[in-house]
């Protein structure tokens, strides 16, 4: 188990390194520079700016400095927002996105998994059909449709909830609902599938033949195995919630990482793009690692391989 974790950890580091390099060289190879703007800047000033940010050095040297800086936890200055370092921006906006993302993921799990379990246990009844039809709709609606739709109904028509900004708890509800509905639907379907597979196993018949009550069979005998598909999906779900946050944070005007990411890309803010990409990648790698560990912990047959 320790060996497995160490191995996955190393793999994760390599992936991060690769992502860092690819992003860096892609950004460096893109025509134009962060400092080219509509306003004409006198050449000597431009040269000064470029020297300040290290753009006068050859690209490999820049890569090396940038990489060593990043490893020591320093992402560099924002190339567009004067006097603000990438670290500052992350420190300010990451908690916002983290809060939105984790609440959305948690809501998706808390809604999706119990729904999936009940649908599997009561398969082919309305407790199965209704949630599964709703979840089909949830999966088919993209966030950029779901978001405005929810904002329209709950914000503008019913006037129950605020539709933009980030000031109090009530501001979380609509964006989190937008983000989590899709994943709740997905988790529900995955859990239903996983549980159905378990409930059809021979060992369930053995348990019933021993006189084990139905719900004990569900949570004691089937839950571990039945949750495996959902757990495996945690990594991709987090990735999706993060990229979904680009859209949702823009729709609901939330000052999180996603919004910064969009701005950084539009403004060609090289250091910010790099910093945010690495941060997102690290999040996904960590979540995948956690999901793998959970997977192994749930399935005793994997522990020895």
């Amino acid at each position, binding site marked *: 188990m320790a060996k497995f974790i160490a191995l996955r950890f190393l793999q994760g580091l390599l992936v991060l390194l690769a992502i860092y390099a690819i992003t860096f060289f892609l950004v460096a190879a893109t025509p134009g520079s962060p400092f080219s703007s509509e306003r004409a800047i006198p050449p000597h000033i431009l040269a000064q700016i470029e020297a300040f940010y290290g753009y006068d050095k050859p690209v490999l040297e820049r890569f090396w400095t940038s990489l060593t800086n990043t490893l020591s936890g320093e992402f560099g200055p924002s190339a567009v927002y004067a006097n603000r370092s990438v670290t500052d921006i992350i420190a300010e906006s990451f908690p916002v996105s983290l809060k939105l993302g984790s609440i959305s993921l948690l809501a998706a799990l808390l809604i999706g998994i119990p729904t999936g379990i009940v649908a599997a246990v009561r398969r082919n009844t309305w407790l199965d059909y209704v949630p599964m039809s709703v979840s089909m709709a949830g999966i088919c609606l993209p966030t950029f449709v779901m978001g405005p739709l929810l904002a329209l109904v709950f914000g503008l028509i019913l006037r129950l909830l605020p539709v933009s900004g980030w000031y109090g708890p009530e501001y979380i509800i609509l964006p989190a609902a937008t983000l989590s509905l899709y994943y709740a639907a997905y988790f529900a379907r995955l859990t239903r599938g996983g549980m159905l597979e378990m409930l059809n*196993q021979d060992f369930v018949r*053995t348990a019933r*033949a*021993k006189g084990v009550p139905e719900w004990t069979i569900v949570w004691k005998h089937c839950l571990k195995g039945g949750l495996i598909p959902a757990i495996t999906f945690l990594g991709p779900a987090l990735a999706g919630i993060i990229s979904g946050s680009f859209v949702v944070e823009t729709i609901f005007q939330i000052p999180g990482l996603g919004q910064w990411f969009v701005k950084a890309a539009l403004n060609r803010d090289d250091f910010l793009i790099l910093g945010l990409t690495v941060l997102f990648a690290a999040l996904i790698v960590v979540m995948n690692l956690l999901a793998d560990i959970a997977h192994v912990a749930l399935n*005793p047959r994997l522990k020895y391989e």
Partner: protein
Amino acid sequence: MALLHVQDLKTYFFMRGGVVRAVDGVSFEVERGQTVGIVGESGSGKSVSCYSILRLIDEPGRIVGGSVMFDGEDLLQATNSRMREIRGGRISMIFQDPMTSLNPFLRISTQMVETLRLHTDLDQRAALHKAIAALEEVGIAEASKRIHSYPHEFSGGMRQRVMIASALLTEPDLLIADEPTTALDVTIQAQVLDLLKQRQERLGTAIILVTHDLGVVAGTCERVNVMYAGRDVESGTADQIFYDPHHAYTQALQKAIPSLQTKGDLLYTVPGMPPDLSKPVQGCAFYPRCPYPKLAPPDGPPPELVVLTEGHCAQDCQYCDRSKPIEDVLTSDVTEAFE
């Protein structure tokens, strides 16, 4: 009074394409401490009969008729909670495939202790002790350590031993063993059957032993029920079925016992395929495969069971000429099948 009296049991599966009459009027009795064999080829309804006794039939299946009197109580009328007391408490069951019948996600200890906690007042520790002792009794070395393993750490034979130990933990009155050795190596089969017999003698458990091998039955059972296409075609003592089979199907099964075969190394198999259970039976279900000369095309209800001698009954078939010596008919059929 018999411990178990199954009377005219009918279990149908209501499929989209029609009704599959998997069990269509099965009757038999099991006395205390007795071993009763149920024999028949694949698809004859042996497992469905067993599951029906414990009401372990799922949709689209339904028990549509008959009674299962167990110790004076009709299990088909019992409440669900009463059934849970009986399952694993007074009637236990072991299954064909020990690889899939144990839960791979739970330790053996968890699975064995669970049964004891459900059916006895033992606390966790006492239950664990009892489970360890049970594993030792079925010949598992270092049981106190190995009980904490997961099923995949055991071989197939060992797992079936675990299944037997688990099933007998609560000292049930009746053990239903659905082909307990079919998935095992031949050498291990004998060991497991011996173990079953040995435990039975200690505990006085009655056993229903399902198998498709008449040879297994001969060595282990007192009485035998032969099933074909969801019905009983013959029942009697092991000796009667083994040495004096009456029904053509029983005779064919007897011919198929490997050790009784005389024709070189070739194995005799019953020719033809079992009938489609979703079609109603016209007269004798075995008619299309029957090796005797045919007399009349069958129609009407299946033949009644008639008593041949004390304790020996069989379907009395009128559609074939039973006067020709069986040996001739079957041997010629065998050679035909081989040529």
